[in-house]
């Protein structure tokens, strides 16, 4: 037996005594939503069955439609929601931590109850809903990745909207002119990089307030594409009819019931997304690139003192962020829509920015946030199509209401990179 010196004691860390603080925000929010559910699903209950279609044509096996009686389902779900609310209140009162399962379970139940209520007497294509969710999320996810990279490097990227819009326009025009969607895709990335570079030069070289530059860029690109659209594209429709990227179904995987078509019957941009998101996550936290990127976003002077060229590194990373966002822009014209229309990004760049914050500047969490916003939009579209009892104006608000609630609920808890938005001024 070897005698061993006691190994070095772990470095002492600072721990202050904590007071017992009860957080009532979550249980109160749950209670409000439960009351909403009670009013809609029980007091204003609708008769009839909601038919949830879970299958699509090419599945391995067909899951039969779920037939839910609206009234009974509503009662059951409201009871379950009330139970979850009670649990959350009990956990808050006894200062217990609740897992992330609670908000997820609550959200799923609420949505299910809402769907059953709204779709009473109609058929709701769940598989289609998921397909639409992925489709609507793609530009958000690319935009959010651009935001994550840029903000982690210390530059606030309000210009995601401009990068998406610039990418969409350029992708459409170059794709039509050359007849090659791949060239269009690359051109979209270049256009978005150029937008990023303008942001980078003003923010990094001339220390202009980054939010202002970003907003100005958004307005500028919107104006520019509007002008070119009406002066150029309306008279030359040939310049605005790019070929669309083909859907490339992945054999076997596409036949997975429910999720297969949504995830694996997509174009190359979507598959690229599946690779890029984990790649960025891995790169940020496991590579030299990520270490330096996070360093210049947290404490640029410290990075400078170990010989990292802060200004240059920021510039190229903001440009890289543009390239990623540009892919999201290309998705509008080369995949989902097939032609450019005025301001077709419709503020999605800002929602992507919200996803960055909601996702705590982490690529995977930001993607999850973007998917949530995408789902809200898809839900609104689907319910609009089957004719829901809620006025369509309210349904249109849904994605934005979800965004506001999400950001307001989480903004205090997530911490931005310390030097994000602050120019690095060297003596």
């Amino acid at each position: 037996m070897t005698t061993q010196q006691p190994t070095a004691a772990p470095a002492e860390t600072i721990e202050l005594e904590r007071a017992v603080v009860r957080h009532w925000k979550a249980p109160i929010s749950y209670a409000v939503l439960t009351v909403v559910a009670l009013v809609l699903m029980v007091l204003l209950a609708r008769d009839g069955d909601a038919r949830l279609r879970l299958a699509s044509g090419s599945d391995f096996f067909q899951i039969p439609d779920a037939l839910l009686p609206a009234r009974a389902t509503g009662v059951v779900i409201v009871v379950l929601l009330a139970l979850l609310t009670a649990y959350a209140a009990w956990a808050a009162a006894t200062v217990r931590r609740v897992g992330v399962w609670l908000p997820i379970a609550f959200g799923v139940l609420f949505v299910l109850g809402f769907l059953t209520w709204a779709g009473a007497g109609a058929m709701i294509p769940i598989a289609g809903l998921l397909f639409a969710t992925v489709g609507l999320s793609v530009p958000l996810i690319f935009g959010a990745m651009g935001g994550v990279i840029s903000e982690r490097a210390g530059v606030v990227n309000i210009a995601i909207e401009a990068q998406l819009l610039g990418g969409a326009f350029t992708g459409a025009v170059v794709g039509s002119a050359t007849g090659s969607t791949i060239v269009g895709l690359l051109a979209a990335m270049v256009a978005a990089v150029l937008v990023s570079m303008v942001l980078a030069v003003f923010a990094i070289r001339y220390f202009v307030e980054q939010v202002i530059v970003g907003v100005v860029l958004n307005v500028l690109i919107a104006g520019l594409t509007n002008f070119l659209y009406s002066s150029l594209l309306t008279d030359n429709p040939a310049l605005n009819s790019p070929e669309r990227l083909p859907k490339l179904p992945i054999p076997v995987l596409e036949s997975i019931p429910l999720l297969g078509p949504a995830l694996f019957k997509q174009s190359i941009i979507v598959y690229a997304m599946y690779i890029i998101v984990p790649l960025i996550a891995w790169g940020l936290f496991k590579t030299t690139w990520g270490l330096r990127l996070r360093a210049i976003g947290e404490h640029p002077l410290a990075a400078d003192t170990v010989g990292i060229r802060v200004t240059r590194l920021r510039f190229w990373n903001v440009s890289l962020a543009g390239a990623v966002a540009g892919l999201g822009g290309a998705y509008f014209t080369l995949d989902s829509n097939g032609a450019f229309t005025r301001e077709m990004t419709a503020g999605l760049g800002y929602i992507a920015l919200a996803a960055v914050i909601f996702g705590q500047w982490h690529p995977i969490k930001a993607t999850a946030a973007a998917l949530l916003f995408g789902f809200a939009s898809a839900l609104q579209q689907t319910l609009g199509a089957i004719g829901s009892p809620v006025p369509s104006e309210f349904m249109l608000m849904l994605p934005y209401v979800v965004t506001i609630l999400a950001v307001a609920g989480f903004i205090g808890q997530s911490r931005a990179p310390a030097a994000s938005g602050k120019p690095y001024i060297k003596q």
Partner: protein
Amino acid sequence: MTLELQGITKRFGALTANDHIDLEVRAGEIHCLLGENGAGKSTLMNVLYGLYQADEGQILLDGEVQRFAGPGDAMRAGIGMVHQHFMLIPVFTVAENVLLGHERALGGLAGAKQKVREISDRFGFHIDPDARIEDLPVGVQQRVEIIKALSQDAKVLVFDEPTAVLTPQETDELMAIMQQLRDEGTAIVFITHKLREVRAIADRITVIRLGKVVGEASPDSSTTELASMMVGRPVELTVQKQPPVLTDNQLEVSGLTVLDAIGQKVVNDVSFSVRGGEVLCIAGVQGNGQTELTEAILGLQPKATGSIRLNGRELLGKSVRDVLDAGVGFVPEDRKVDGLVGEYSIAENLMLDRYRGAPFVSAGTVDRGARDEFAAEKLGAFDIRAQDIHTRVGTLSGGNQQKVVLARELGRPLALFVASQPTRGLDVGSIEFVHSQIIATRDAGIPVIVVSTELDEVVGLADRIAVMYRGGIVGIVPAATSRDSLGLMMAGERPAAAEGAAA
């Protein structure tokens, strides 16, 4: 390795921060660079480290002229620096901080961890390479800075005011580390304004004043000699004061607890009282709750419970306006951020909290005559060196800015005076002035609380000393308590007999 600086000159606009400075450091010696705040020590070191470019002069290593375009070059040449404000990324681990910038040379994260363990073992540091910097106490963070420099095989190590954030014990440990490094053949530059430390450790001393070298001093020089050399005139190092004459005025704080945003008790069940005519100094290492305590007294902390009674009146829960009206004068920790409006003139700053009525405001308009008269009087009384009362406060030196704050806070009838780090960053002349004003306030029968991290200042001013550690008061002891036991208290050890421990 021998480092030589020859004729280094650095100008910022009209200000010459370094004026033809020569300095030589040899392997295996500790060379102290002694100078007041603002003498140009840090500028010189930033030039050496490649953060600033010198306007004139050159840097030689072993007789060869060096050109440093950035810190990377300096580091490659073998110069390492332990910065006054640590150059560590708070959300990174120890190993990640060491790795940053030298990813290939260290062989990735695993190599960096290995290196951290190696160097820790050599110096007995006990540092976990996977600990996050923000969870570590400042003393340990400083060791990470040292490891960072050593991991690059630095032959010349520069310590820029390294003891400013340390407890006396940590300071002693740091000195031992510096001696060990010297004995291993490292050339060390030790920048400081603390005479005690210089005398304890220096092999050679160079004194600089107003950007110029004023000469070399022997390590055997007395503190008074060193001080007068540093300041340029004979200096009174001790604060002159009579025994306290207690009055009936009283501040009574009991069971005060302050929570921060995430529910941590940054001030934890603190009780003490201050009588009129005495100075209670609150000592402790920066960040142990002193800031939050003073802010709670002023009503700036929203989540505070307990009681703060001034002459029997409860102050807790009152608005800042009410607290000020109750006669509380407050010198905040950071005069530039919380004490003054840099864009306003001296006269405007002097009436900053008195905008609500006579004598400066009548019928909603500022009475400029009264304001200027008041300002002119204070300019003379507090020896504020400025062109006139309309000079922008932001353009004044630190000492004169602090005098403006004092003039305002002491310029109205007070029932309590709270000064937080009143002499931080000031030159010796201003420090003497601030101290005399604090003592004069005490002698006027007003309870005075002074928060300071400088032990010399605490010992000099205090009638009683309360030591704070991690939000609590470790103990309240008489001013005559030895530095050693104060140092232990600053590290959280309770003294044998202290009044505060039970109260």
